[in-house]
């Protein structure tokens, strides 16, 4: 444990770079998944292939992806761009199906009502379907955020600074506290970001607040003991 006290600056630096590496792919996969998920929900015959393709992205082993991706996108292996693009791909693997589900789960009666009120197509998508799908989108985004933060650590193998460096270095030098600190901080960072997303959700999706739902007609069914 002494090691941790002696290396707080190192750990802190890794924590910051970790966060900076994690945020762009989380945002990017959310934004990119919107059109793809929309397409998967809208165009019937595209649905299965798009969702399968998204699922398979997740099956690409990360190490080779990090090494080969630069050949495709023309960056250096250790470039943040490389890591961000790779993590965005993994994020899409999770976010595309989540988005498709979320958009499909919008009550068709709400969409119908919007049509009947005279919403145009784009406006309806942006101001009705998207916000109404918000809670489900948020659930998907939370999964993406947590797993992206966990995946950032893999970059350490290539020399991209992140909490993962506490694993590689701690491993070589047999410093258990280093590895443990890395694991604990990664999980903590993920949970903090997750909590922030939940808070953000309450802010931008005020109608889903539990206090709001409390006045709804109560359910009839009580689960008997």
């Amino acid at each position: 444990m002494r090691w941790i006290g002696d290396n707080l600056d190192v750990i802190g630096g890794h924590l910051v770079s970790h966060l900076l590496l994690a945020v762009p792919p989380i945002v990017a996969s959310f934004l990119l998944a919107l059109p793809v998920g929309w397409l998967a929900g809208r165009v019937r015959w595209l649905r299965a292939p798009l969702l399968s393709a998204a699922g398979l992205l997740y099956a690409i082993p990360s190490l080779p992806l990090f090494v080969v991706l630069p050949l495709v996108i023309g960056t250096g292996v250790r470039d943040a761009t490389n890591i961000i693009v790779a993590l965005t791909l993994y994020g899409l693997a999770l976010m595309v199906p989540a988005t498709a589900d979320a958009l499909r789960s919008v009550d068709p009666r709400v969409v119908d009502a919007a049509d009947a009120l005279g919403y145009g197509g784009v406006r309806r998508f942006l101001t009705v379907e998207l916000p109404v799908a918000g809670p489900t989108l948020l659930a998907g985004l939370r999964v993406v955020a947590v797993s992206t933060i966990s995946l950032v650590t893999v970059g350490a193998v290539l020399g991209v600074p992140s909490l993962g460096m506490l694993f590689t270095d701690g491993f070589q030098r047999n410093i258990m506290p280093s590895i443990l600190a890395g694991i604990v901080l990664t999980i903590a960072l993920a949970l903090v970001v997750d909590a922030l997303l939940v808070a953000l959700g309450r802010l931008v999706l005020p109608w889903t607040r539990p206090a709001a739902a409390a006045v709804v007609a109560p359910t009839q069914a009580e689960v008997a003991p």
Partner: protein
Amino acid sequence: MIEFTCVTKQYPDGTVAVDDFSGQFPPHQTTVLLGSSGCGKTTILRMVNRMVEASSGTITIDGENIAQRDVVPLRRSIGYVMQNAGLLPHRRVIDNIATVPLLNGTPKAEAHARAEELMDLVGLDRSMARRYPNQLSGGQQQRVGVARGLAADPNILLMDEPFGAVDPLVRRDLQAELRRIQSELGKTIVFVTHDVEEAFTLGDQIIILANGGQVAQRGTSEEILAHPANDFVAGFIGLAQGERTLHRSPDGGGVLVDGHGRAVGVLAEEPAP
């Protein structure tokens, strides 16, 4: 005046929901489309604001063929109240009511002021303005739906079983409210229901539909009750089952019972007021 001429609707899966329907919905009156489930009531109603496109035939509003009009302005010019209120769950009550004026570019303050007046009109407390739909009871949601339908001050109001999902006490309230509002505003209302009582309560004119949007009879409730056009109509409104043939109960007390012996009401000796 809304006028259907030989309108047919066939859905892509081949279902002919409405077959050669013709009919007029006179201005400033409530026309009720009455019929059992699946007979095509909703389809007819939704053809008026082109939520459903007619397969053939013409529909005119004040003589103008609606097929020539842009759908978005057409829809904004017609009020539409749906069974489950169809409110936007992510908008506050006040914004839900003001939806169409806001879409039309009315300044927010003005739209909201108008929405508050409408809340008064439909009997909603203004304190509910900032709630979300899921914070309201079913009956309150329905009132919001009616207010929204009236927000752009449309000449035409389409109502598709608007009170179908609320409990009977509340339903009776809402019907009374609608009658009051209609007596004030005099809109052209097309009202869909499968509830005979409701149709008789609200309709200036009633169109009883059989399957495929076939008109079985049209007229006022009294015309229909006194002279049902055929067995189908008599059965539908309950005459055939003896439910509308009332007898004095042998127990006395002026209680009237129907053909099943079920108590229905009390006979007042003086004629109708």
